[in-house]
């Protein structure tokens, strides 16, 4: 039993969302668990500094992503393929193609996209956030959010068309 009901309520309310976000960014259960824990502990230490307590969810997402970037800096950087800027050559991917791959394969594919593009794309899919809210979470302008999501989505679809579907055992 926690001695701090506010902390306990917050954890119960948002740990799933944060874990999913962390998992989608890292593709690793261990890293997602660590990021989720660390995010709540940072909140516990800095809650009095929150300028807008009403936007605690956004603050948690921002913090988790910042911690994720710290991990990226400490680890060997993976060279990602450049993102195609040409939206005219949008590859066709149907829902069936996505349904034929498992979640881990999808996470592996996401992991091939540069971190700067991956986070907005993950928020685009995972959360019911407007583009303005995604920009606030990631501290980037609205126009940048939209262009990054568009480019990342094209890259994701290119990678999905190259991905072999899972085969029955």
């Amino acid at each position: 039993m926690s001695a701090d009901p506010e902390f306990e309520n917050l954890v119960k309310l948002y740990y799933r969302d944060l874990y999913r976000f962390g998992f989608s960014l890292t593709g690793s259960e261990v890293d997602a668990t660590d990021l989720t824990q660390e995010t709540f502990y940072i909140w516990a230490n800095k809650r009095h500094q929150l300028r807008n307590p009403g936007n605690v969810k956004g603050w948690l997402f921002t913090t988790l992503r910042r911690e994720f970037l710290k991990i990226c800096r400490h680890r060997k950087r993976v060279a990602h393929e450049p993102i195609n800027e040409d939206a005219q050559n949008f590859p066709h991917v149907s829902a069936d193609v996505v349904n034929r791959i498992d979640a881990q394969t999808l996470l592996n594919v996401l992991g091939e996209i540069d971190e700067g593009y991956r986070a907005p794309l993950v928020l685009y899919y995972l959360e019911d956030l407007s583009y303005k809210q995604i920009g606030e979470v990631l501290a980037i302008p609205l126009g940048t959010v939209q262009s990054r999501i568009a480019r990342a989505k094209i890259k994701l679809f290119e990678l999905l068309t190259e991905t072999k579907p899972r085969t029955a055992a």
Partner: protein
Amino acid sequence: MNTNEAKEKLLLYRDPIDDADPQFREALAYAHRNPELAEWLREQAGCYQAIRSKLRDVEAPRDLAEKIIRNQPIRFCMDWTQILKLAAAIIISAGITAASLELWHRGKRPVLQGQEIVVKGEVLDLTCYVAYNWSGPKHASCAMDCIKSGLPVGIKTEDGKVYLLTGKEAHVNDQLADYAAKVVTVRGKETARDGFAQIQVEEIRKF
């Protein structure tokens, strides 16, 4: 607007999240009039939902919430009245101990004076360390706040010995706050007063 322009716009459209977003209005209206584009938009929506479901189906470990709550850091640093009360309590108990030792040792207590020593160890916020045995990287932020606020700062050497760190005529808190919970090497004069080991710092080197 032509089909390609509409596609470029609708590439970002999510139903129903972006329904109220005016930037999609014109392209959506165009899709209503263009069956081929409407079909493309339906496929996009299906694909969006498939990816979203896959990502949202990820389950957090069952015991994650309990684990986070169980290991919750104790709120301490942010409550400055508590910190001041604790610091006052430490100073009072240290004073009582010192007075008792003074009475006990009166007339025979040597004041150990200053051999120069060099020690390497973790910079401690002594208040939290003495009261709660808090130290290490997880406590770094709190330690930094406490040291910055002027609470006693110390160093714990690799062999476990703890020294109070003092300056020659002023506190060394400002110089050490940034090294809270980090390993540094300190050179200075070792002294002891009433049993408290301390170093009068002359040089700090970040290890």
